[in-house]
């Protein structure tokens, strides 16, 4: 099967694409909760890149329960890094949601382009 050139770079382009639209979403967002959603999309670009780097074609998962150790397997280190990254994502998202909730309780506004510290809403 001829491997097309762009197929060899597909996950890197997908990661760059998700990062770009994450940045676009955050910059143009008009609601704190929407902005937090775009931030988590931007974070999913890092999962894509890391797991893409660890993937090996024709290899099985790094769990030697049903197939014996020594059979070719993908890179477990990258999967451990992505696990830590998912915890980071959950932690930061929870904190951001709490801050968004408290800002709305304080001043009834959740528009990131109008809220400015020390200067009062625009």
């Amino acid at each position: 099967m001829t491997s097309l050139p762009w197929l060899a770079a597909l996950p890197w382009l997908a990661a760059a694409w998700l990062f770009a639209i994450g940045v676009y979403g955050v910059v143009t967002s008009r609601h704190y909760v929407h902005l937090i959603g775009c931030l988590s999309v931007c974070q999913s670009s890092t999962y894509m890149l890391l797991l893409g780097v660890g993937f090996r074609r024709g290899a099985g998962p790094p769990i030697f329960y049903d197939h014996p150790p020594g059979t070719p397997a993908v890179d477990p280190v990258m999967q451990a890094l992505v696990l830590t990254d998912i915890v980071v994502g959950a932690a930061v998202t929870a904190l951001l949601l709490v801050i968004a909730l408290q800002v709305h309780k304080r001043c009834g506004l959740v528009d990131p382009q109008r809220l400015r510290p020390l200067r009062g809403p625009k």
Partner: protein
Amino acid sequence: MTGPETLLPLVVLAPLGMAALLATIAHWLPSRMADVLAILTALGIMLLCGWLAGQATGGPIVHWFGGWTPDAAHRPGVILGIAFVADPASAALAAFCALLFAASFLFAWGYFDEVHSHFHILMLLFLAAMEGFCLTHDLFNLFVWFELMSVAAFALTAYPLGQSSLEGAFSFTVTNSFASFMMLMGIGLLYAGTGTLDFTAIGQAMARHGPDPVILGGFCLIAAALLTKAAILPFHFWLSDAHAVAPTPVSVIFSGVMVGLGLFALTKLGGQSFGAGEGAMAPVRALLLWLGVATAVVGGLMTWGQRHLKRLLAFSTVSHLGIMLLAVSALKPLGAAALLLYLVGQGLVKAALFMVAGILLALRASADEIALYREGRGLWPAGVVMILGGLILGGLPIGLLHGGGHLIHAAVPSRVAEGAIILSTALTGAAVLRAGLRIFPGWSGVPGVERGAPTEREHEKADRPLWLMVLPGALLLVLVLAPSSAAFPFLAAAAPRLLDPWAAGIATLPEEGGTLASGATFAATLALVAMSLLRRRPTGRLARLAAWGERLPFRALEAAHSGVVSDYVTWMTAGLALLAVAAASWR
């Protein structure tokens, strides 16, 4: 396992264990016990790190976690485990972090008196993250401590639950989350390019097959993340909003050492992992030099144009970070020594000044320089600390900061950079002196440029004794007035080992001469203060035109620092593009 090697992981495990213990038994803990335990932990870590720094001058103390030493894997060239490597500079900086935490805990005695000691849990996790960030030798472990530091900082910034602190915490979180995403992408690229995550192994892999696009791309992403943490232009916008709204004990840590760690990690990575080819990073180093000049000047101007004390001190931190980047961009042992001494010096002075701002917030219910006109007369100890701190910032020729400035002048390559250092040091020192003279003795002319700066009516918990709040600040100032020549022998040994832990030899540091630069700086500071004292209301048309002209650049800069998180993210993307173009232009 020798003694120091066995005790090295305790530097991180002790604060984590104490935080977990407090989280478990917080419900049944007598009220002041959490404060005592936190201070004892911080002091213990400080002594341990100081002892390790002394031991490390002979050779770096290495501890491989889980016993996974490089040869335990029977695979030459494949490093499985994670190492903590304590070279003298890292251990000394870790000790400095613990010192600032102890002073901050002392200052915060009685500040947070609710039941569950959540503040102390967050601060201990913050301390553990900083210790790990200084000592780790593995790239992803550096990211984990970077992220733990950030999460603790986000929660502590929003702690007072005021509207400004919540919005400041929100933009702080979003910008630093982008920095951590960029760092993760950089780690992914470096792992794909070199196949390992250990600093030295990355350096060897890069020396073997040269900096190809993957490694350069990885370096740019990681450098962008560390420059965001080190608040260098155009990544610096979050800092003024976060420091100005955080509770005082937290701002002490932010400005004292957290931002400096970004530059420290950049120097360590630059030396150990990416310093292989001399010419390899020339265009990136040139860009860092010019970013340093721009950051120093913009930070200095913004400091001069502020009226809110904490925001003024935050911009002075931005300016000092720009100055430190100038010394670091050369990636030479002299630059590393200058960074270390200047970082400790400015950290001590900034911590003391933030505590004075906290005292004014607590006892005079405001941090606004103009609203506090003549209000500080009853608090003369805080006045002495503030005015002495302003003098030291402005270039008073005694103490650690003067020694640091002297080394930076020696390490900085170009004349333009020296001019920027003199201008920004004068601006920051004069701004602090202007505020101090206006608040305490009440000497001040008409408010000039700082009238239109953003400010806020706020206060902090008041029923705390003045002596307890002034004591840590005064102790820190006594430390900064220590003669810098005492630190030169340790610095000479520590600097080359920061760039390469297994390097032998001693760096040659220029002797402590009264150079023209330090005299010019102090004179410029006094001139600016005199100008602000003699300022009268502009009556004639020409004077009014001059006043309008003088305000123009400050209004433009204030408009750029808009406070809107969308702007900050846009500027960060532009900064990343700038870094990438500089790295790409190497080939």
